């Protein structure tokens, strides 16, 4: 059996453990280890993406137990896509953090690695309970990262974040155990097979269990009215942590995609499409709430948080329609928005640096944690390479982010929205809900343009920075890379869209997934 499938979990885990053992004594070694792990993950994810782009899913059985008894990891197109997104965003945020943030508090590096491990595990696992376990690994690390740098605002927002997520985890457990109590299995593929044969009197209870599970996922995805925790937490978190946290909400989306389409897809008997309309309506409400939040806020970090909500809402609304082509569009949108929002979160700090507001917060945290010796060293560092015309570069990056987040042509944000809407408004009578979705997407784009332009004018024109912000290459490079990837997505939209369509097909007709996981166990060994 090839062990490549489990490598994205093992690599950051080992790196994290090694970092804890090394401790803060050799910071150079820790940084090198972190860089190696992040780059290794990107390479692994690209390899796995190549392998996953096939009709057969790759299944990794831990301990070589058959899927029904043991723990399985499943790599299909969707998992591979999410792995790649995590790896890219992780590498970008990590590189960014090396400029200064990684010194703002203890144990940043191991937490970051465990965060990546939890995310990768959640995307790879093939059964519900391990999904819970990896959710918890991911959340535990994210609690640490959200509090990284400390300070009143972070602790306050972090407290809310932790409580909300603990409650959501309890709901997750209730949902999982109801489903287990009725179906007698936790393996997602096996569960999907058993959906057909659920006794009529148990069906309502099973659906209730799935609904409770859905609430846990949708809390993570920040669907209205479950997402009020998101904006304050992300706005308070340190910059690289916020960039990584922004993909956590996509884990909720992933879980909905995976579990909902598997359990209530074509094989579900009487429960086909259970709750789909609700997901769409919830998504629409989230878009509305997020757009109002986008318009209402003056603070760039909160603007980014609200954009995360809008993107979650758009995804949920598109997925809830239950159409293959719309799901493909949603996947394209997901890719774009993860990269764009990640870049935007990183960009905010650089933009605000000239305005002294962000600098104040940073100074406070560094006062609390940095020792005198380090500060001297930093002074040298901070002179760094001052990029000529750094404001121009920042302005250009900001503009690109605006185009991407608002979904304006010619960049991939527009293509993604188009890919979601065009199948919904295709041939035949168009249901009213699709028109509402069209309106919501266009209006949310408008709200994003208005808010971003207002913020951009405020930052770059109306109150020009008192001093030109000194930006180091190591800080602007990850942002540039993320935005370049978005441009590449726009240019190479054809092949990417083909991949997304295959992914959506496989999600809506999960024969390959079920067959791959439940296939006959490996040949009996002679004892």
């Amino acid at each position: 059996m090839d062990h490549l499938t489990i490598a994205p979990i093992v690599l950051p885990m080992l790196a994290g453990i090694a970092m804890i053992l090394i401790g803060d004594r050799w910071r150079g070694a820790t940084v090198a280890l972190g860089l190696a792990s992040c780059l290794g993950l990107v390479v692994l994810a690209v390899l796995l993406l190549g392998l996953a782009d096939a009709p057969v899913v790759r299944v990794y059985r831990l301990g070589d137990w058959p899927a029904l008894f043991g723990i399985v990891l499943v790599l299909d197109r969707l998992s591979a896509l999410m792995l790649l997104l995590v790896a890219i965003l992780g590498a970008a945020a990590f590189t960014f953090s090396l400029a200064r943030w990684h010194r703002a508090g203890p144990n940043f590096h191991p937490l970051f690695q465990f965060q990546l491990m939890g995310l990768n595990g959640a995307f790879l696992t093939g059964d519900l309970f391990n999904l819970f376990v990896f959710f918890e690994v991911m959340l535990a690390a994210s609690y640490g990262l959200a509090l990284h740098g400390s300070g009143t605002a972070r602790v306050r927002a972090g407290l809310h974040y932790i409580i909300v997520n603990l409650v959501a985890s309890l709901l997750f457990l209730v949902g999982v155990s109801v489903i287990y109590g009725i179906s007698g299995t936790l393996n997602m593929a096996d569960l999907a097979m058993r959906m057909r044969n659920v006794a009529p009197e148990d069906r309502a209870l099973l659906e209730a269990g799935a609904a409770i599970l859905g609430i846990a996922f949708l809390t993570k995805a920040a669907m209205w009215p479950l997402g009020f925790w998101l904006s304050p937490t992300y706005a308070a978190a340190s910059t690289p942590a916020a960039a990584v946290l922004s993909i956590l909400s996509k884990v909720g989306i992933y879980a909905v995609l995976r579990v909902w389409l598997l359990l209530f897809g074509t094989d579900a008997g009487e429960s086909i499409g259970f709750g789909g309309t609700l997901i769409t309506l919830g998504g629409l409400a989230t878009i509305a709430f997020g757009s109002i939040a986008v318009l209402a806020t003056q603070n760039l970090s909160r603007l980014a948080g609200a954009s995360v909500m809008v993107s979650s809402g758009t995804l949920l609304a598109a997925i809830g329609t239950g159409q293959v082509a719309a799901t493909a569009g949603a996947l394209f949108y997901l890719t774009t928005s993860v990269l764009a929002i990640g870049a935007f979160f990183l960009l905010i700090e650089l933009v605000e640096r000239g305005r002294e507001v962000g600098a104040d917060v940073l100074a406070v945290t560094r006062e609390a944690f940095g020792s005198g010796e380090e500060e001297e060293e930093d002074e040298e560092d901070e002179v760094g390479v001052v990029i000529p015309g750094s404001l121009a570069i920042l302005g250009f990056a900001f503009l690109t982010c605006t185009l991407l987040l608002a979904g304006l042509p010619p960049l991939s944000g527009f293509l993604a929205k188009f890919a979601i809407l065009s199948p919904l408004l295709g041939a035949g009578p168009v249901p009213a809900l699709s028109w509402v979705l069209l309106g919501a997407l266009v209006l949310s784009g408008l709200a994003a343009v208005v808010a971003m332009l207002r913020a951009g004018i405020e930052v770059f024109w109306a109150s020009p920075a008192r001093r030109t912000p000194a930006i180091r290459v190591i800080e602007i490079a990850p942002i540039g890379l993320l935005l370049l990837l978005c441009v590449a997505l726009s240019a190479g939209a054809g092949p990417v869209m083909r991949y997304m369509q295959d992914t959506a097909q496989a999600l809506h007709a999960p024969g390959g997934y079920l067959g791959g996981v439940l296939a006959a166990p490996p040949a009996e060994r002679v004892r």
Partner: protein
Amino acid sequence: MELVLSLAIGVLAGSGIWLLLRPRTFQVIIGLSLLSYAVNLFIFSTGGLRTGAAAILEKGEMGTLARYADPLPQALVLTAIVIGFATTALLLVVLLAARGLTGTDHVDGRERDR
């Protein structure tokens, strides 16, 4: 036994939720603990309630759930307890930090002026 267990779960969950909605952090953390006890008991009960069933198979027996207690919920509940314990401990630290930094133990509000 079903009645006793369901009552226990119900009472724990009910008090947990009530405490969870209270304004102070200590009440919230106790509420979360009670709620997690309720959930753990609930997970345990999904394996079916039986008295005196063997924990594992006897030698040479057929593997059927009629003969022994379902081990999976027990494994699940063990994992859930460990994870719940760790996250509650973490929350306790954050709670203390919040108390120290903000000077109030309100989750989301401020002290009423006396």
